[in-house]
């Protein structure tokens, strides 16, 4: 039997209403394509609606906060009149707090270890369980360790923001702490 002559038309049919097509073959288990269609919903409107709501609420909250609270502006910078204490922005106060114990360890070593440690988490944690669930019971140690990390950060920031006064000494919030933050 003579081989059927393949026409260009058979591969690229005319008038299919398609302008282009793109296919890619990859190894591995399919994540969405082969699953039951019941598990998926259209982004419009099921995802776009929450996104729009989120956008609206966030914008409204930010506008309201900006209408009622003014950003701080102190006197013009004066290099010969340092406030006591001089404080970094709040998210760096944990850092400043650590520096007050030891300049190198608190100011350089720990922050570098924090950042590298965070980056390493996915490669150190070999437990594959608990994806897609909040506080999965299958990974108690990881959750405890990370929670300790978060709490240490928050506690240091709170101490730095509310409990430090002149000469970086401990002051209670109701005492005069001098300076500003």
């Amino acid at each position, binding site marked *: 039997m003579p081989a059927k002559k393949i026409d260009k038309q058979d591969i690229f049919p005319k008038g299919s209403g398609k302008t282009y097509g793109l296919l890619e073959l990859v190894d591995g288990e399919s994540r969405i394509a082969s699953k039951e269609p019941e598990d998926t919903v259209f982004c419009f409107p099921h995802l776009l609606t929450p*996104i729009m709501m989120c956008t609206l609420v966030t914008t409204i909250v930010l506008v309201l906060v*900006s209408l009622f609270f003014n950003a701080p502006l102190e006197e013009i*910078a004066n290099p010969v009149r340092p406030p006591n204490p001089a404080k*970094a*922005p709040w998210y760096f106060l944990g850092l400043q707090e650590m520096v007050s114990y030891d300049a190198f360890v608190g100011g350089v070593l720990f922050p570098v270890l924090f950042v590298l440690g965070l980056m390493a988490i*996915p490669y150190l944690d070999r437990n594959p369980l608990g*994806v897609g669930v909040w506080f999965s019971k299958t990974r108690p140690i990881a959750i405890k360790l990370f929670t300790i990390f978060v709490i240490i950060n928050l506690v240091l920031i709170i101490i730095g923001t509310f409990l430090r006064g002149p000469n970086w000494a401990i002051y209670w919030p109701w005492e005069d702490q001098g300076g500003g933050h």
Partner: protein
Amino acid sequence: MENKNKFDLRETLSYFAFEVPVKLYRSIIRHGYPDSEKNKSLLIFTNFFLHILPVKVRKHTVKVRYSYCMGGITLLLFIILTITGGLLMFYYVPSTEKAYQNMKDLEFAVSFGVFLRNMHRWGAHGMVATVFLHMCRVFYTGAYKPPREFNWVIGVILLVSTLFLSFTGYLLPWDQLAFWAITVGATIASYAPMGDLQRFVLLGGNTVDQGALIRFYVAHVFLLPLVTTLLIGVHLWRVRKDGGMSGPPL
């Protein structure tokens, strides 16, 4: 027959009144009303701004109680900050002689100047908070596990660049708060190995002065936004390539 090339007023008017608007609309929006599956798909992938989204997602993805939209809110705040920051640039000159006066002008002379500055300031604080909360969400839902390991690493870099964006912006008002916060920060940098050199590079001098102001300004309005924008692009692209937002195994 003879009418064919003749100017027909009624026909012309009705063309401009009824056909042009439709043609204009069709040339921008290339799909019909999204009530069919085809049009719902076209709506997403024929739109430049939406085509980062898939046409369909797992039901799990649309549950607000899973991600609390924290990544999305961080992105939104970054966009708001870019817009308000761009407007602030019209009024701000990065000079130790002018900067503080510019802040006062924003307060007293520029229409909505205070509001603009407030949006930028509180938005920045908000972004630091939401990026941290987003990281916590990703951790507690185990969303950094394979195949999303490297997106977490990119995330950590984004966290650091967000902090630096905020820190460099802090100096710009050139008030006491700004000046001494940056002096403290730069002192911390000097504790590192070769610290004095590092501090010099950071400040463009030995003290916080004009050299530091212009460096922080350029970093704040150009270098860091550029890096952050690029990384956010890669970050979101990878969310798609890693199979969409994480969820429990099917």
